[in-house]
Every structure is written in structure tokens, then in C-alpha cells.
């Protein structure tokens, strides 16, 4: 049950790199997260989309070689849907997610530190209610640990190719229109020209 010390050290190191990337990717900021939900700033989707395409290519290239194994969560319908919507509502209220809130804490955003306390409370509430919830969670059934290729009996490369193509086309459209966007910044609506 306990992780060996080297894994804890790797975890800390991974976290440091993750924190640098979240901060440099601008997602440790309240404005970027909330503007994503207002559909005026697409930084979050750009980062997630690129991470997913890069990671998926790597995973499914290494999988047949036996160099990596999948670590999936089961598709428990009620938990995923109801929990997922609660998560989204809470994230919009708070303005950070579990990873970016600690990144925002590192950036010195004090409202994120308060929300981290709220998260400890929310997690504790779930833990206390868990015995009663465990039956409810399975109310809509459990489809097990299943991937899109398994579910549809298709090659993973169709999915990965589709995702990569969608990202490239979308990024290309954004890039070709970025000239006009720069002159008329519409993202968020909080723009002060920086003093020279």
C-alpha cells in the first residue's frame, strides 16, 4: 500500500515539472479558467487537447511493446455523470481545478488557498457519506474499465488520428485569424495596455 521512497521522490519531481507547466501555460489563473467556461479564452482546451494527442500517440505506440499498461477508471455511470457535473459547477464557482488551485497557490493567489481548504472539506464529506453512496453510485450500472476502441471495436489509431486532425485544423484556423484577434482582443474583456 505504501509507495517506495523512490516513487515518492519521482512524484515530487513530476509535480514540480507539472507545476511549472501549469504556471507557464497560464492555467494557474482565475481569469483563464473562468473565461474558458465563458468560451472567451480557449487556453484550457488547447493545453488539454495537445496533451491528450501527444500522450495518446505515445501510449498506444508503446502498448503493443508491453512497455506501458493502461490505468483506467471504471465507467460508473451515476458517479461519472452526477459527480462530473458537480465538479464542473464547483470549478466555475472556485475558478480553479484541483491541480491548478495548488499551482495558483504557488503563484500566490490567496483565494485559491481558501478554496483548497474547501476541497479538503468536500473530500472529507464524500469520505463520510461513502458507505451510503456506494450503492447509489452503481444505480445506473457500471460499464467497467473500457476504452473507446474496445467499446466500438475499432483501431485506437482511428480515434487518435481523428483527435490529432481536429486539433491541427482548429489550431490552423485560430492561427490564420490570430492577426485580427491581436488587434481586437476579445478574451475575457479585461485588457489594460501595459505601460511602456
Amino acid at each position, binding site marked *: 500500500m505504501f509507495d517506495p521512497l523512490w516513487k*515518492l521522490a*519521482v512524484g515530487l519531481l*513530476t*509535480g514540480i*515539472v507539472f*507545476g511549472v*507547466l*501549469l*504556471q507557464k*501555460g*497560464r492555467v494557474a489563473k482565475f481569469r483563464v479558467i473562468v*473565461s474558458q467556461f*465563458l*468560451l472567451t479564452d480557449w*487556453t484550457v482546451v*488547447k*493545453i*488539454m487537447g495537445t*496533451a*491528450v*494527442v*501527444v500522450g495518446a500517440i505515445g501510449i498506444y505506440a*508503446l502498448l503493443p511493446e508491453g512497455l506501458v499498461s493502461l*490505468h483506467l*477508471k471504471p*465507467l460508473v455511470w451515476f*458517479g*461519472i*455523470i*452526477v459527480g*462530473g*457535473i*458537480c*465538479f*464542473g459547477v*464547483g*470549478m*466555475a*464557482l*472556485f475558478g480553479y*481545478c*484541483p*491541480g491548478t488551485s*495548488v499551482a495558483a497557490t*504557488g*503563484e500566490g493567489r*490567496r*483565494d485559491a488557498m481558501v478554496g483548497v481548504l*474547501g*476541497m*479538503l472539506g*468536500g*473530500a472529507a464529506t*464524500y*469520505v463520510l457519506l461513502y458507505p451510503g453512496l456506494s450503492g447509489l*453510485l452503481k444505480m445506473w450500472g457500471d*460499464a467497467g474499465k473500457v476504452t473507446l476502441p474496445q467499446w466500438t471495436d475499432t483501431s485506437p489509431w482511428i480515434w487518435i488520428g481523428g483527435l490529432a486532425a481536429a486539433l491541427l485544423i482548429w489550431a490552423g484556423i485560430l492561427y490564420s485569424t490570430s492577426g485580427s484577434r*491581436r488587434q481586437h482582443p476579445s478574451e*475575457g474583456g479585461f485588457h489594460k495596455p501595459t505601460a*511602456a
Partner: protein
Amino acid sequence: MNYRIYRQLAGVVAASTAGVAQAASELPTPYPYPEPAWSPYIAGGLIGLLVLTTLVLAGKKLGASSAYSDGSGMIGRLVAPRHIASIPYFQNNKPMIGWTFMLVIGTIIGSFIAASTGGELTGTYLQDMWVARFGPDSGGLRTLVALAGGALMAYGARMAGGCTSGHGISGTLQLAVGSWIAVICFFLGGIASAMLMYRL
């Protein structure tokens, strides 16, 4: 005669360089801070490589939300160790300083380092967008909303089995059906409540 042309050319180049530099510094940036940030595609691509590397080298998934149930359990253990040990959830998920907990600690450190190098360390409590919507005297409201939002989010993450990192990146890149559905639900809930809060 050539000499004069060169002098004039040099003058024009110097003047235009200064002019361009001047114009560039006067351009409104799309962000209300100087830009020490990286392209989201580069940050995202590196996060994808990071998830891949930890899966291959350590056999571990990159996630954040379970650190909060571990954290609450460890805090609870300081107060009532017997009670914590008797809680069913903690019998399958012993609260401990594990992989995810260390990852979250590392994230604070990494972000602090990145923010320091980019001159982005801030001590703000009310963020710009919040102030524009709820006013500068809304500190009490912000405290309540941050606590409630954080609590609801962490509760939902445990119920769904992951967060934006665990489902949103690590799960979706393994093409897990549940993770893709979870992400859609994250966005549905987030878009609906953000629109209600900031657009009505």
C-alpha cells in the same frame, strides 16, 4: 557621395528600429500582464509527455484530486485516529503521503518557481474578473464561494473518480470512455454555472 547615402540609410534604420520598438511597447497585449507564458500547445505537449513518462517509468497516473481525501484523512487522524481507521472509504484508500500527495506538493513548488522566474508572483485575493463582476468589497462573498466551490468540486471529483488531471488528461489520453464522459460533464456544469454567474 556613397558615404552620405550610408549615413542616411543608417539613420533611417536606427529611426525605424526605435520606432518599431516604441510601437511594440505601446501595443496592447492580449493579457493584462507582461507575457512570461509559453504557448499552450507547447505546455500541453510537454504535459502529455510528462503523463506518458510517469506511466512508463513509475506505472503511475498523473492526477491531483485524491490528494485531498488523503489530506483530510491525515488531518483527521491527528484528531481522532481510531475513528479515521474505522471509516469504510479509508479501509480501501488508506490516507497517506503517497504518489498523488507528493505530486500536489511538487505542483506548488513548481508553480512558485515558474511564477518567480516570470515575475508573476502575486498576492491577490480578489481576481480582476471577480472584482469587475462583484465589486471590490466582495471579500466575504469570495471566501464563501471559494470554500463552497472547492468543496463541491472535490466532492464531485471523488464521486466521478478523478479531476481535470486524472480524467481530463490522464484518462482521456488513454481513450477511456468514462473519462471522456466525465470531461463532457465537467464542461457542461462549468459552462452553465459560469454563464449564470458572469453573463446574466
